[in-house]
């Protein structure tokens, strides 16, 4: 097992899907069964390895482990430096897990135009980008992985997306949903990334000529930058991350992208892509620029809470089920960001469990929304009433997931929300307690709104008598592939809810160490 712990295991987890994509290229287009099996094999292997990784992981050790560092681009002192700690471990497992389930789900559910080969290849490339981001410890490597996810998602939305005509408000331009959404997604994210890259370069040139995250943090790169420059560097980084999170007011690409994306695309987008931004805050912004993080924390906290309330209210106005779920993501990520903004171990722990929980729960919600629109050919909630009667199992799962999403204690979603609020009661030293306690109360009000829109959604979709237009239609309840993809997610939701140590056990020590290291200069 020594090879496994020397970084090979981690590299395999990251690159197996990419290899799988290469293998898929060689499979003739007509042989769909073989394509699916190959994709499943590689995604499955990656997942199994990530589970092995979790067992090989030393939970008593707070620092980076199981990684390696090899020269990559010596000219700019950038290296292939990977490794995980308790913060990245749950997210690595989450991304391989969701990718596997997405492939299982796709088995029988292909969006138009068919072409599973291309779709699977994109999914596998996406998997490499996502896992890679969570293990990269070098800024350039991080940036590469961070951007790798863009293209597959762009094509997924642009090719397999929603073909309905929409009219862009104000400008009255008519276009197809998928085209509008994919371009918006791509350009918006790239816009943020450009600033992020600028920030990285500033760190490199002024912070000791290295791209290594650990070195930057340990060398006190922030001190070298000087507070004036550091302020702007943090702003640039935060902008890049915030677009990806997405934080209010940089979130507008999200509802469109989610609504337009094919089911699996939405799932991956919600479950993992959004975590890249929040993870970057924890992994890059706080350790490298602790002082500036503290400077900016109130602003981030306020935006996060505005996001919670704003997104919940916007949810109440939605008529499209998928769009509602998309907006709810903005609200949930607001809780995550609130946790991060407190800069306390509790807050960051809350953020990570919030990410994992949101990944599983919202992923499941998107699966459900996708399967329902696949059957009803509409996502309009007004037309869907009585689903519970037509498809009892699907309705029950939807009810369960909605409950999990509104933060029902005992299920995974609760911990992230409650602990984020808990941490806001006593934020890190130097932050305004009055402000954060106000944010705590407002955030708690947000949970009421969240309950409101989810319950009303359930009422519209599940309850009541079925609409007349569905009379005489035969509806298949949940099929076996859907069940195979969803049952693990349900199980994980319950397991984390009952036994949160599954996540906290890994994260807590690392988070405490991260916060202690970052703020050791501040006392």
């Amino acid at each position, binding site marked *: 097992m020594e090879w496994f712990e020397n970084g090979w295991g981690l590299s395999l987890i990251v690159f197996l899907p990419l290899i799988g994509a290469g293998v898929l290229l060689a499979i003739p287009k007509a042989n769909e069964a073989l394509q699916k099996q190959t994709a499943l094999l590689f995604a499955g292997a990656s997942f199994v390895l990530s589970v092995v990784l979790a067992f090989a992981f030393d939970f008593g050790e707070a620092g980076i482990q199981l990684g390696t560092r090899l020269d990559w681009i010596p000219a700019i002192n950038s290296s292939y430096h990977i490794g995980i700690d308790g913060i990245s471990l749950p997210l690595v497992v989450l991304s391989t897990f969701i990718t596997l389930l997405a492939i299982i789900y796709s088995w029988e559910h292909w969006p138009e135009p068919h072409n599973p080969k291309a779709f699977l290849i994109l999914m596998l490339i996406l998997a490499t980008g996502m896992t890679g981001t969570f293990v990269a410890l070098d800024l350039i490597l991080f940036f590469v992985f961070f951007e790798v996810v863009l293209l597959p998602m762009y094509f997924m939305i642009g090719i397999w997306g929603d073909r309905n005509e929409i009219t*862009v*408000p*104000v*400008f009255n331009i008519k276009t197809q949903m998928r085209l509008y959404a994919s*371009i918006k997604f791509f*350009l*918006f994210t790239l816009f943020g990334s450009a600033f992020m890259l600028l920030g990285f370069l500033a760190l490199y040139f002024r912070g000791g000529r290295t791209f290594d995250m650990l070195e930057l943090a340990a060398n006190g790169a922030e001190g070298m930058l000087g507070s004036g420059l550091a302020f702007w560097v943090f702003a640039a980084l935060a902008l890049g991350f915030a677009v990806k999170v997405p934080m209010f*007011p940089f*979130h*507008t690409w999200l*509802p469109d992208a989610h609504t337009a994306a094919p089911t699996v695309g939405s799932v991956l987008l919600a479950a993992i892509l959004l975590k890249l931004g929040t993870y970057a805050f924890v992994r890059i912004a706080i350790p490298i620029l602790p002082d500036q993080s503290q400077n900016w924390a109130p602003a981030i906290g306020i935006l996060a809470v505005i996001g919670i309330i*704003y997104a919940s*209210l*916007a*949810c*109440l*106005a*939605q008529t499209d089920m998928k769009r509602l779920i998309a907006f709810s993501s903005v609200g949930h990520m607001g809780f995550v960001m609130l946790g991060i903004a407190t800069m*306390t*171990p*509790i807050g960051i*722990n809350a953020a990570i469990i919030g990410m994992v929980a949101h990944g599983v729960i919202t992923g499941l919600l998107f699966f459900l929304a996708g399967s329902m629109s696949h059957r009803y050919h509409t996502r309009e909630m007004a037309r869907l009433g*009585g689903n*519970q*009667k037509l498809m009892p199992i699907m309705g029950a799962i939807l009810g369960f997931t909605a*409950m999990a999403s509104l933060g*029902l*204690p*005992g299920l995974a979603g*609760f911990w992230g929300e*409650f*602990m984020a*609020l*808990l941490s806001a*009661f*006593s934020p890190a030293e130097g932050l305004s307690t009055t402000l954060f306690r106000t944010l*705590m*109360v407002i955030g*708690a*009000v947000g*949970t*009421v*709104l969240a*309950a*409101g829109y989810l*319950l*009303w959604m359930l*009422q519209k979709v*599940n*309850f*009541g*008598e079925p609409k007349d237009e569905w009379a005489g239609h035969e509806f298949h309840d949940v099929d076996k592939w859907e069940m195979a993809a969803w049952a693990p997610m349900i199980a994980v939701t319950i397991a984390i809810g*009952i*036994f*949160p*140590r599954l*996540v*906290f*056990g890994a994260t*807590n020590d690392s988070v405490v160490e991260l916060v202690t290291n970052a703020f050791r200069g501040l006392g």
Partner: protein
Amino acid sequence: MTEFLANAGSWILAASESGEAAKLSDGGVLASMAWLIPVVPMVAAFAIVFWGKKMPYKGWDIAIAVMAFEALYGTALLLSHISSPIAHDFQIEIAKIGNMPIEWGWSVDGLSIMMYFLVGVVGFLVFLYAKGYMEGDIRFTWFFASFTLFAGGMLVLVSAPNMIQLIVGWELVGVSSWLLIGHYWEEHENSSAAIKAFLTNKVADVGLFVGAIIVSMSVGSFRFGDILDAVESGAAEAPMLAQFAFWGGLALFIGAMGKSAQFPLHVWLPDAMAGPTPVSSLMHAATMVTAGVFLVGRMFPLYLTEGFATEVRSIIIIVGALTLFLTGLIALVQDDIKKVLAYSTLSQLGYMTVAMGAGAYTAGLFHLFTHAFFKALLFLGAGSVIHSVHSNNMSDMGGLKKDMPYTYWTFVVGSLALAGILPFAGFFSKDEILASLRYASGEFGVADGGGALATIVLALAIAGAFITAFYMARTVFLTFHGEYKGHGHPHESPRIMWVPLVALAVPSAVIGFINIPGVTEVFTKLVGGREVKVLDHHAESFDGLVLVLGLIAALAGIYLGWRIWGPDKETQQERDTFRVDGLYPLLENKYYIDDFYMDGVVRPIRGPVARAMDWFNGHVLDFIVNGAGLLAKAAGRVVYWFDQRGVDGAINASGAITGAGGGVLRLLQTGKVQQYAVLIFAATVILVGGLVIWF
């Protein structure tokens, strides 16, 4: 994985000053296995969902077995507790954040044992009854799954030894009540009522969350034991808690107001009648609505210890008094028999809250205890009537005394108990509350000038006793006396339904005797022992004045009710024409509170506010985004135009010159590789040679 089991430590509370706690035992095996109490119903709920349909009684058998287990275990714990008091908390660490452990656990002490017993026994009887009531329901199995979850959630709540688990149980109760109230979700009103209940509770939960956070973070632990120790150590020892105690206590009470349906968050409870009657019965008696009172009871020292949240008590007592009086009045005008009972529950919850606010811990919990029996009885009786006449409205009833003897007599027992007539259970508990209010008005000041406040509340409480007796008399007379007004032929309910009625009528009649001031103090000992160390001031003996006043008020209420509704009249309308102009429209519209919430809060938020946000998203934020995109596109077009016209002009001019030169150079282009190679080599030689010479 064994590591967390090793952490499953246990701790015993420090002995209190009175010395009583020195006798507290850890309860032995019975207590250490008490984790079964919350876990069994939770597991059973899932079992019913998955396997219930395959069972002989379609899941009811699992449910009733679970409740029988709960009843037996509760009783066993109760008996063991009475013989030797138990106070023991068990905790299992499930996570650690920062250095605060998060734990599951179970608490075995007076308060929780009382609740285990109550939920077990009342729950068992209600489940028994529900078999008959729900026979033939389309979602019979599903109903029992939710119902078991409901009971289980309540048990998780009351077994909680820390804030986190309390919240978990709290919300589980909330969500299962949502399932049960919306059981007939084909009707839009039912699912709306369910959502109303859930959301009202969720609003109050903001208070619970905030309160739990404030209190836990100030103490640095989620454990009740630690929090109460901090309170006991005094304000000087726990300065942070003392600083935030007011807000923490207030927020927790707001949370309690939601579940215990205190004014003005009471609106969900009457609507919750949309659920099947057994649900209402259990919800109003032993579970859900008692949770708020339970929470205040758990945190009682926080409200009573000087230097902490004592100021909150005046708020508690005012809210309780308003609830008990105002909702009692509404009960007078209801035609739906279940709504009458619902409003009476609100009113009785007001009594309990008032008692808690006045510092009468034992009295408040005793009323909770007795109320659970007779309110369950009344609801089941009402359910039996509804089952028989297929209508909720008393205008469709009347004269059922002959046809439904078991129901009638048990209902009368319940009504008398509720009204507080001498030998019945309600009398003792209500009298104790009145007595402690008198005590509070005299010696125990509630905040500043609390004496006067307590006196006013005492007056309201006695008036409430009168109102209670009055509307219960109305209900009994309109339902069981006179002529039958409905359709069809009423009949007594099957045995499985009336047996629980009789079984509940017995305690409703006699259970008051377990806590006669100065004579038997079983209940005082039962709930005492742990949290309430010295602060409780239960009455040592009867307070003659309030006893007489209370009894007179109740008897007057019954008499007046008999005078108005007793005599037989032609029609129900004629019988029910007692109206007070000016007051009745207000009561019939429930003080317009529901309308205010609906039209003033919910509709604006769901409508204009939400749409405004959505509009803002599409028309402002997206305007910026799309505008930037289109601007870039437009800029691109300008540049392209310039490229085509401006730059190309220059290019074309230079192109002409280049063309002429090209004509010459063209001769070089022969297409023969080797000639090119000659040129390449020659050029290289010249260039490199130049360099060599240069340097």
